[in-house]
């Protein structure tokens, strides 16, 4: 998952590379691709061999498995909804009305990455009111802050790819109010950026360990670690399962959300951007 995120950031900040000429040694490209694949796939394969297929069945039947998974999914939904509700209007507003604040917002949103999660959660637990501390939803609120850098960057890149000012002016000259403009003009053209923000947020929530553990909630990653102590093959299977579950959900989001985005040829940021870059413009 870490690889997905850093790839994503790299895609976003780097200007699109000029297309290489066809004749530049395709052999080397394949060799590098192969080496990279080996680097990533061998550990996975080794883990699969070690665990054995039967262990996966054991994992699913362990106590706490489904509770932990459901809690993690709930948190993913809450975090995503809250993040979008906060970040989408904020980013659009800053782009349209306060473009000078973009730099500041960028610095603010990077803070959650700079501050170690331990510091953040210890601080939050210190000041959070009791009624929130007794529910897992406090975690959701904290995750919103953690997801902010990724959500902001995706949305910012998506908005920069649009001629936002012109589109908004055009819509309003045609008689559209704010809601119509947002719903019919801005959001459909931000689909790819929204998708990317969602994918990153969900991936973050499904993989976060430190905060959940210190807040004493058994999310899926916490459950896997707690469970790790017992049997070697079974705990390896659990780790692999965590990986696959995350991939499964990301794949789901990309296919469901990406189907229509393809048509619009919208913003450039998403997990499958490499294959799509040619179709944009």
């Amino acid at each position: 998952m870490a690889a997905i995120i850093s790839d994503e950031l790299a895609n976003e900040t780097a200007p699109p590379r000029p297309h290489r000429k066809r004749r530049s040694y395709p052999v080397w490209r394949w060799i590098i691709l192969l080496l990279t694949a080996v680097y990533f796939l061998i550990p996975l394969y080794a883990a699969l061999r070690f665990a054995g297929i039967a262990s996966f069945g054991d994992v699913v039947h362990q106590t706490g498995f489904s509770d932990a998974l459901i809690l993690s999914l709930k948190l993913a939904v809450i975090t995503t909804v809250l993040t979008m509700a906060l970040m989408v209007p904020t980013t659009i507003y800053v782009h349209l009305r306060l473009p000078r604040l973009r730099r500041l917002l960028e610095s603010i949103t990077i803070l959650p990455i700079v501050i170690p999660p331990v510091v953040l959660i210890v601080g939050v637990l210190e000041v959070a009111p009791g009624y929130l501390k007794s529910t897992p939803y406090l975690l959701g609120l904290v995750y919103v802050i953690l997801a902010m850098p990724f959500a902001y960057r995706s949305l910012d890149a998506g908005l920069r790819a649009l001629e936002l000012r012109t589109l908004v002016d055009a819509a309003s000259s045609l008689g559209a109010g704010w809601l119509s403009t947002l719903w019919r003009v801005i959001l459909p053209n931000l689909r790819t950026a929204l998708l990317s923000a969602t994918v990153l947020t969900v991936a973050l929530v499904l993989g976060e360990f430190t905060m959940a553990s210190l807040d004493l909630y058994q999310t899926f990653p916490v459950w896997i670690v707690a469970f790790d102590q017992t049997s070697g093959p079974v705990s390896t299977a659990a780790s692999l399962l965590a990986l696959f579950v995350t991939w499964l959900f990301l794949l789901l989001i990309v296919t469901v959300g990406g189907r229509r985005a393809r048509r619009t040829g919208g913003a450039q940021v998403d997990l499958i951007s490499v294959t799509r870059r040619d179709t944009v413009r």
Partner: protein
Amino acid sequence: MEATNISSATAAGVPGRAASGGAPVSLQEVSRSFGAVRALNGLSLEIAPGELVALLGPSGCGKTTALRILAGFETADSGTVTVDGKDIAPVPPAKRDMGMVFQSYSLFPNMSALENVGFGLRMRKMGAADRRRRAREQLELVGLAAQASQFPHQLSGGQQQRVALARALAIQPRVLLLDEPLSALDAKVRLQLREQIRSLQQRLGITTLFVTHDQEEALSMADRVGVMKDGSLEQIAVPSELYTRPATAFVAEFVGTMNRIPGELASGGQATALGTVTDVQSGCAEVPPGPVDVLVRPENLRIAAIAGGNGIITTRTFLGSVTRIHVLLSGDVTVQVDVPSATATELAPGASVQVSLDGSPVQVAERS
């Protein structure tokens, strides 16, 4: 969800409908500052119903600000803007019924050409079937019926601007606003679209404000052209008058090609340059007698090949029916002279020539 729901817009926008009589537009003493920059400085402008007025000027002269104030995207610091005699200051842009065409990239990328054109009608709660019919008619009007289902990124720049025009016209606006709609296009497409916009505008009889920095565009399309400088109008007149009788030196030099030739202004109102004495056009009263620059268009200069003349030809450019000759005069002054191409053969670079005024009244400006 019937067509009757559309306020003031029920008369079908069918091709070839009679001129509907656009609304008169009036800007009175409109000023607007952005920080320390005074973008508009007491601009007053009247546009008659069905008239196309072009605002022409260098960048930063305030022409776009004027248009955006009329559209409602900016508010004036002072002054009034009326449409059909009513002050529109309190009316938000969405309720002004003004169709606008932007410089570029204004089509909604997520909608087909047909959906783009139908967007304004949808905002007016027109039913889906009527909307589609009307949008299709508008696309036919601009010759793009075959591209109805294509998305903006599948259309060429010229096609995109035609869809944008159809979209602006579909709402049957009271005023049409054109914000440099042709400046992002290549020359040939620009020329075609220029004619198409003008003929549509005349056919529909729609009051239009057109903002451009391209003088050829302004002069060829507009009923009247307003030349702007530093936030106010220097002169507003029909194109031919602007060219032949510019009110100020700025207009004279901004519109068309103009030579500046050192000369003398006598207190009696006559100017001497290149050894010729000529009358001075009215409107130059503010220039005091003494050394001045005389402003002469290339077609108002005479040139003859003479040994030991007052200038030497540096370049000769064939422009079709006329040929433009650059002549270096004494005192390091270069002038441009237009001659009929048939007579230009003997005027080769390097030749010595005599350049003189043709005697028609000239403009004068303070020596630069």
